């Protein structure tokens, strides 16, 4: 899980991912290509970040993962280090009773795959050590695997214990210096252990419906273990496992077969119509055989919107207003908000290209009366009027008003308003579909509705430059 921590931290600190902002958690779990550096760079960034920080990132990102042992959920025979990672058996009674400690929270199944490792600092007297998972009801005086709904891999005999005091042969024994890992795969519903980075095979396939905590148990004096919940790189290559599981999930999704290709054709067509790409509409409709009367009827409307958009993106606002009044006579009367935006843009264009006196005169004549309508208009007017105060408005603090992107924004607003005016949807269905996909995937993870969604990053499905 360390890769996920680090990815989140990377995303967060760089702040460069303005696009689909809340994708970070599931996306990082799916090891998105944009974070391909995760395995190498992650270790440094995660070890330098305190656990608390990682935790808060996860809470904000749909689920919370175990990050340390719980001082409250600990047998009194055990001593916990201040960073809550190292556990030592302390009692010196002759008949040593087992002592168990659970992690600070359960493993949310919606994380897809969870992995943690434990290093044996010392085998103590006898090395009666157990590592595994258990539920919250497991008594704190038992070793992992001894009770119902707990699973443990024990160091002294290498046996696997599954809800019973009698184990079965599973792996090699382990002792001082060894690193033992435990992987819970919620997609497969299975658990396996690793020793020094080597997987030891499936331990159980019977974890469905269980709320599981990482846990360790010790039994003789001097036994000491230190956990790694992703703070450091793992001995086992968990990234590879993530990739494989993700590949399986994506393949499953891709292999479902419906009418998606036909649906896509229609979505593309309606998208092209929406944005007024009239020539592309004609060609595409003709090639796909989706042309016909309904397209013919729309083509004039599409061309009108296209023409208006082009004029506006060239900054020719006056002509835009004339065309609007000619083609859609009631439109600007009904949409005073759009008229206001256009007039503001005209003022901005005049600041760029005309003598300042003309701009001022235009502002007073056409715009200033809007300030009586609402505070919002007034504020916007104050902002654009202040352009006059600068000898070089381009380098002024409000120079962004003069950029082309401001025009593009209005092009988009105007286009949407015209579509609404013509009783069309203001958002292309294509966009609705993409947004819905993103929100549903997030909710599947958040509501714990399925473990596979953790591997899905909608951004990767959209990003066409991504060759993955």
């Amino acid at each position, binding site marked *: 899980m360390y890769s996920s921590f680090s990815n989140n931290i990377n995303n967060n600190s760089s702040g460069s991912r303005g*696009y*689909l*902002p809340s994708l970070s958690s599931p996306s990082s779990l799916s090891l998105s290509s944009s974070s391909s550096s995760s395995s190498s760079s992650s270790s440094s960034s995660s070890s330098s970040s305190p656990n608390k920080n990682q935790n808060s990132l996860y809470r904000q990102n749909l689920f919370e993962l175990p990050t340390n042992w719980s001082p409250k959920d600990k047998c009194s025979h055990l001593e916990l280090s201040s960073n809550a990672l190292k556990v030592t058996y302390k009692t010196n009674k002759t008949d040593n009773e087992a002592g168990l400690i659970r992690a600070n929270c359960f493993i949310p199944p919606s994380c897809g795959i969870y992995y943690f490792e434990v290093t044996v600092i010392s085998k103590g007297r006898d090395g009666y050590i157990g590592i595994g998972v258990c539920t919250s009801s497991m008594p704190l005086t038992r070793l992992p695997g001894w009770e119902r709904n707990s699973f443990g891999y024990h160091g002294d005999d290498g046996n696997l214990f599954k809800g019973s005091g009698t184990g079965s042969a599973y792996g090699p024994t382990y002792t001082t210096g060894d690193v033992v890992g435990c992987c819970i795969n919620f997609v497969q519903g299975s658990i396996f252990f690793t020793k020094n980075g080597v997987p030891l095979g499936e331990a159980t396939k019977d974890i469905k419906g269980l709320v599981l905590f990482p846990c360790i148990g010790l039994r003789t004096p001097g036994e000491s273990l230190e956990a790694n919940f992703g703070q450091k790189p793992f001995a086992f290559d968990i990234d590879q496992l993530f990739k494989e599981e993700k590949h399986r999930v994506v393949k*499953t*999704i*891709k292999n*479902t077969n*419906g*009418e*998606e*290709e*036909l*649906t*896509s054709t*229609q*979505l*593309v067509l309606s*998208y*092209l119509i929406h*944005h007024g*790409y*009239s*020539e*592309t509409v004609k*060609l*595409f409709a003709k*090639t*796909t*055989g989706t042309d016909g009367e309904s397209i013919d009827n729309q083509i004039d409307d599409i061309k009108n919107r296209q023409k208006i958009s082009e004029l506006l993106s060239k900054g020719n606002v006056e002509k835009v207003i004339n065309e609007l009044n000619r083609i859609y006579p009631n439109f600007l009367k009904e949409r005073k908000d759009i008229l206001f935006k256009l007039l503001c843009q005209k003022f901005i264009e005049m600041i760029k290209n005309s003598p300042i006196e003309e701009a001022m005169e235009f502002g007073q004549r056409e715009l200033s009366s809007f300030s009586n309508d609402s505070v919002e208009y007034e504020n916007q007017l104050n902002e654009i009027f202040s352009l006059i105060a600068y000898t070089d408005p381009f380098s002024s603090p409000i120079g962004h008003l003069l950029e082309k992107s401001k025009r593009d924004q209005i092009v*988009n607003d105007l286009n949407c308003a015209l579509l609404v005016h013509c009783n069309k*949807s203001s958002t*292309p*269905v*294509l*966009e*609705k*579909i*993409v*947004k*819905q*996909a993103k*929100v*549903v*995937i997030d*909710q*599947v993870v958040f*509501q*714990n*509705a*399925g473990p*596979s*969604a953790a591997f*899905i990053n*909608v951004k990767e*499905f*959209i*990003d*066409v*430059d991504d*060759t993955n």
Partner: protein
Amino acid sequence: MNKKVISKKEWEEKLSEVNISKQDLNKLVMNFLVIEGYQEAAAKFQEESGTSSIVDLNSIADRMAIRSAIQSGDVEKGIEIVNDLNPEILDTNPQLYFHLQQQKLIELIRKGQISEALKFAQEELASQGEENEKFLEELEKTISLLAFEDTSKSPIASLLDHSQRQKTAGELNAAILTSQSQDKDPKLPTIIKLLKWAQTQLDSKCQYPRIKNFVNGEFE
């Protein structure tokens, strides 16, 4: 178990928090046009939207010619161009080959060339049907079109739709792209699949505004 209810208002807030730019959607559309082989539309789209393609649009030409042959009903010509391009494509893909032959049969039926259709089915398709149960089933279904004097009244009249041609053309197009080791799947259909898959998962836990119509985006 009681399902959690997410209100329309709550849902719309979540939707509005998703930022996706027009540029990204344009790229998605370009990706679809290029991979599906709509060369002219792709070139025009590049011009009208200012979206550039990462693939050389000229490489679409062959795939385009094949697609247009199939979509205009000339399956024979489609097969010819594919074999000129790379004969292995059809040799190594019996299902695709069968679907092309099936499409050819459909075209014969459409044109009312009944005796040719029967002859073609017996001579070319029957042997493939013997080898594969699924092919046989599809073959029988197609042949049953002949039982209707007015084929549009047949329950399987959809085989005669333009969409059937498009489906066959799409399958062939994907096979060619794979043979050229290009990404054979356009992104958009996968996103729709993803959405359907995810909605099914979420249904188990929540009641929420799910999209039921993927063409017009209507909620349930």
